[in-house]
Structure formats: structure tokens, C-alpha cells
């Protein structure tokens, strides 16, 4: 077990972390490239970047309007995200591991704070899961991954808390640490390929939408030509209906 845990903290962690960073970098860069390409296609090049920046900031900092709807769910989400980001990076033991691994480190948070944040993350994570299960709208929309993620993310926090704060028999401690390390590695591996990529992509949403509403000139005509209807746009009465060479005019086709 010891070797497995060391493997999970060592090579596997490095692999998972690298893949996470590279994967996120990939989608981020792809989106930026897409933005550049779309911007290039627009003839007018007019995008209200100031407004986009302002709205991006407003979206990232959940103040004001964010509390009007589903305030409890919103509060849980905020608490969840805060703990999720702070504890893995600033918990003292993790900081030591980083120092051992990459050679440098940064200030750690006090243990008491880490403990509180961990408990809040667990509570909020379960609350978010409940908020999804017991809300009809959310249930209709949710895919399997939407149910799995809040629960999966709670596992490293739960096992971590137990390892730090409770007196466990060695075998149990090893099992908890194993779960802790491997669940964290699995999460990191999955982040770039699932909706968790929103951690780097969500800030780009306002820019993406602003650019996407800029339609390239001439596109409509080119679409009609590609579809085989040059000079017969969709508003010409019946023109596409009477299109014989598309296997059209017979009893399968609507007749006037």
C-alpha cells in the first residue's frame, strides 16, 4: 500500500497535474484562437471590449444580481468554490509536498482555517448534490457527470480531513490516504475533458458571446450556394420545394 501511495503522490501526481495543466491550456488556447479567427472574419472589427471586460468581472465576482435567484444554491456554490481552490493549494502539508517536488513553495494557511474550509466544502458539495437532485429543472437537465462531480470532489476533502484530524488505525489511515491521493489524481486527469474545464473557460464566455453575435458578411449567400441553391434564397417562394435534382417532387414531398 505504501508504494501505491508514494506512486500516487509522485509519478502519477506529476502526470495527472501535467495533463490537467496542458489540457486546460489546450482548451484555453483553442478558444483564444477561435476568438481571433472569428474576430478576423468580421468585417467591422467592432467589439465592445470594455463592456466585455466589465461583464466578465461582474460574472466572476458573484455580487448583486447573483443572489436574486436560488440564493441558497448560489451561496453553497460560492463556499464550495472558495474552499475547493484554497485548501489544495495552501494547506500546509500540501505546500511541503510541493516544496519537495518542485523546489519552491508559498505561504500556507493555518490548520484551523484549512479544517473549517474542508468541512464547508464537504457540506456545500453535498448541498449542491441535494440542490440538483431535489430541483425539478436541474434534474431534467443533468447528465450523469453532473451528479457525480459534487460527490467525487468531496472524496479527497473527506479523506484528507480524516487523515489529518482523527486517530486512525494504520491500515485505515493507509486506505484513506490511498483514496485521497488517487481520487485527487483522477479528478485532475478528468478536469480538461469535462465541464470542469469551466475553471479556465468561463471567464472567456462574455468575449465569445460578443464575438459570436458578429455575423460575417456574405455568409448567407455562401451558405445557400454550398447547399446547392445559389440565387434561390430561402425566402423565394417554393423555389427549393420544386428542386427536382434533390429527389424532390413526388408524393413524399409536400405538394401545394
Amino acid at each position, binding site marked *: 500500500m505504501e508504494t501505491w501511495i508514494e506512486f500516487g503522490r509522485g509519478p502519477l501526481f506529476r502526470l495527472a497535474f501535467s495533463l490537467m495543466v496542458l489540457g486546460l491550456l489546450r*482548451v484555453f488556447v*483553442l478558444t483564444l484562437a*477561435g476568438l481571433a*479567427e*472569428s474576430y478576423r*472574419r468580421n*468585417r*467591422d*472589427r*467592432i467589439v465592445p471590449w470594455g463592456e466585455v471586460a466589465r461583464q466578465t468581472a461582474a*460574472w466572476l465576482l458573484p455580487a448583486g*444580481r447573483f443572489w436574486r*435567484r*436560488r440564493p441558497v*444554491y448560489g451561496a453553497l*456554490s460560492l463556499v464550495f468554490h472558495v474552499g475547493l481552490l484554497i485548501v489544495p493549494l495552501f494547506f500546509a502539508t500540501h505546500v511541503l509536498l510541493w516544496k519537495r517536488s518542485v523546489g519552491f513553495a508559498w505561504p500556507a494557511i493555518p490548520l484551523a482555517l484549512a479544517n473549517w474550509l474542508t468541512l464547508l466544502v464537504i457540506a456545500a458539495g453535498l448541498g449542491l448534490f441535494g440542490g440538483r437532485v431535489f*430541483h*425539478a*429543472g*436541474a434534474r*431534467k*437537465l443533468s447528465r450523469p457527470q*453532473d451528479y457525480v462531480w459534487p460527490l467525487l470532489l468531496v472524496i479527497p476533502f473527506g479523506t484528507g480531513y480524516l487523515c489529518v484530524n482523527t486517530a486512525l488505525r494504520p491500515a485505515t489511515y493507509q486506505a484513506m490516504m490511498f483514496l485521497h491521493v488517487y481520487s485527487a489524481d483522477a479528478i485532475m486527469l478528468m478536469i480538461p475533458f469535462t*465541464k470542469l*474545464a*469551466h475553471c479556465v*473557460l*468561463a471567464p*472567456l*464566455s462574455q468575449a*465569445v*458571446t460578443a*464575438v*459570436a453575435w*458578429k*455575423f*460575417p*458578411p*456574405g*455568409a*448567407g*449567400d455562401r*451558405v*445557400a450556394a*454550398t447547399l446547392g441553391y445559389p440565387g434561390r*434564397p*430561402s*425566402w*423565394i*417562394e417554393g423555389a*427549393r*420545394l420544386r*428542386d427536382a435534382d*434533390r*429527389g*424532390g417532387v413526388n408524393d*413524399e*414531398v*409536400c405538394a*401545394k
Partner: protein
Amino acid sequence: MKPLTAEERKQAFSTAKKEGVILRQRLPVRYHVEDFAVRERPRRFLEAFAAILKHANYRLALDHYIRVSAKCARCSTSCQIYLATGDSRDIPCYRSELLLSVYRRHFTVSGVLRGRILGDPGLTDEKIQEMAEAFYNCTACRRCSFECPAGIDHGLVTHLGRYILSEIGITPRALAVSVREQLTGTSGNTSAVPVAALLDGLEFLSGEMREEKGVEIPFPIDQEGAEYLFLPAVSDFLMEADTLMGNAAVFRATGDSWTVGTGYFDGINYGLFYSDHVLEHVIAKIAAEARRLKVRKLLIGECGHASRTAKVFYPAFSGDGRESLPVVNILEYTHQAWKRGRLKLRPGAIEEPVTYHDPCNLARTGWIVDQPRELLRAICRNYVEMTPGGRNNICCGGGGGTVSIDEIQPYRMLVGGRAKAEQIRATGAKYCVAPCANCKKQLRELMDHHGIDCQIVGLHDLLYKAIVFD
């Protein structure tokens, strides 16, 4: 807001379409659609989707939206359609997922691979039918975009869904017929108003104003080199005499040069609702008239979608980019003129309680929110605010072109406009100012249907009563 009763639900979703038509077209939607080719619809839908992805700019947004969606249903909390029906198919994210799932399954590498491995057949005709229904239940008011933590704009997805459907022949007949008249008909506008009728009407209005105000207030016609080319919703020329008189009176007061162009005088652009192709061609007509008359600015009248379409798309589609003519909405113009003291208004001219309805296309981006309110506060004794309002206003229920589709009126009255009707009733106002031709039609029908004693007017209707000439 009270959700629908069973009786109301039945009425709202009733259809006047004949069963035979629905079967022949294999399209169980409530709006009329002109006959179109039905065979192999999924294939042609995907072809249209592919062509649009290739030539337009949607890939960026679609790739992004499929990745970031949190599936949290926050959007449902502000959608007036969902709040009325309680049907989870009306959740904006659910509706967008109809199209996004097609994109994911057919146009992304992982989606295609997963589909092949899992044996997912992909797009079916049933799904197209569902989309045809869903995308026209939405008014594309984009109120949901404020709630989405991932920043997804469901109005954009609705627009794209409608565009693809239009390319395979599925468009509400009401919109298609108007566009046909506008782009290929003899009158060249969506209401088939002939130029002679236009000129007669404007002359008549000048006469009215001469009598009422004792001042000569002309509507300049075909003035070359004028500063502003005036493009209201063409229906204003038929139905909104008071608004037009207000518009003309403002220009008489400021003295700026403006003109109506007999070559093209219709600000309406249904392309915003359902087709980028239509959008561009209508803008081209505006551009041609602007060049013909060598005007220096475009002035859009009291119409939400006409203003937004011109403002956002004129620079690209007119071909002039950053050098293209500035686009001004008449509310902006009038407000600026009043602020600079070029327009005198009599304070307290309107005694009855007045409230203001923000058209989505003017207010959602924060473009025109405070300006009309400042003007109303200047001329009304009793101005009542509706909340929510401003950027977060509630849609009139007729947005996205749905107001022009008469056969879905029960739906608009009982579902789409339900929240708005209750809002207006709660103000107790005698006048509701709605500076948008489509909103006016929808709100008037709402007032009628719900028995609310409130007159829907344009802003310039009231300004006309308050304007003071030196």
C-alpha cells in the same frame, strides 16, 4: 406570477392548423409553415448546419457552450415562459441542448467517436420537430443570459436553431411572407405599403399637425444630403400616427435635417429573428438607400429589433466597417436634443399615471434604459416604475418575431405575455409607454385579453402632447 391553469394550458396550446397539414408536413407546430420538402430532413438539417458552421462564426460559441454548461437550471428562474408553464422543456438550457447535442454528436470529434462506439443514431426527424416547436416558443429575449453562471447566451442558440430550420424550409409563414414582400415584392417593405399611400399618409399627418399645433411640420421626402435617414417600423406609417407626429415635431423643434426615403423606408428586419441571410439582404437595402440619398446618419424609429439590428449589423453588412454611417435610435436623438436644450417640453403635461416598458432589444445591453425615463419624468406628473425593469426587464411576450404570428396569439396572451400583463396591471398606469412597434402590438392585445385599462403608446406620442415650439 400564477402558473397556468389546466383550462388556460389547453387554450394556450390549441392550434387552428388542420390535422391534414400537420400530417403532410410532419410538423406538429402551431404556426403555419409554407410547404417544404419533407424527405430526408435530418440529412438536410445536418447539411445546412455544416454549411452554416463553415461560412459563419458559430463554431466558436458552440464549442464553448458545450464545454462550460453547468446544467444548473438557474436560467429557468428568470424565463417568463418557464415560470408560466412550469414545463421543464421550456428551460432555456434544455432548449439550447436540443441544438447543442446535435452539434456535439455530429460536429465534434469526441461526439462522433462516442456516437459510433455507443451506436447513437444521432439526429432524428422527431428531434427536428421538437426543435421547430421549441425555438419558436422562445422569444429570444435573452433574460436568461444574465442568470447563466457559465455566460451562455441562449438567445444566440435560439437564433442559430431558427436559422438552420429556415434553410430547410421551416419558417413561420407570417415572417416568410413579409420578408418576401420586403426583398422581392413591388412595395419593398414588410407591410406592402405602396409609396403613394406613404406620401398621402404623411401629408395628411402634416395637415393634422398644422391644425393642432398651428405650426408647419413637414415630413421631408427624398432630401439628398440630409443628416438623418429616417427608418421606422413600416407599420408605424399605417398604425402609429401619434408616434410619427411626435417624431416630426421633435425635428421641427431641433431644426436638424432628416428625410424619409421613397426608395426604402422600412426599418423592420426579420432576419434578426430567423435568418442571417435575410438580415444581410435587408441591411443592404438600407445601405443602398443611404447611399442614394447621401445621408450622414441612420435614424431608426421607435422599434426595438429594427434599432438593434441596424446598430449591431449595419457596420458589417453595409460593407463600410468602421467608416459606416452611425446608427441612432430616435429615443437617443430626442433625449440628447432635450438635454442640450434644443427641445422644449412642458413639465407635467401628462396628468394620468404613466409607466414604461423596456423593449428587450433596446434595454438588454443597457443601450437605452435611462434616456426615455428622464424624458418621461420631465413631462409626466405621475410616473410609475415597473420592477423588474431596465436591463432586467420582462419580455412583452411577443419578441423574436412571435408577435407577427397571429395563430399563436393564445400562447402569447396566456404564456408569453403573462408576467408582463400582471406587471402592467400592478402599476395601475393609464399609459404604458412601449417604444417598439412589436411590443405595442403585443401589449395592446394583452391589455384587451386580460381586461386591463391601460393605453399602450409610444414615447413620442406623449412628447407630442408636451412639446413647446418657440
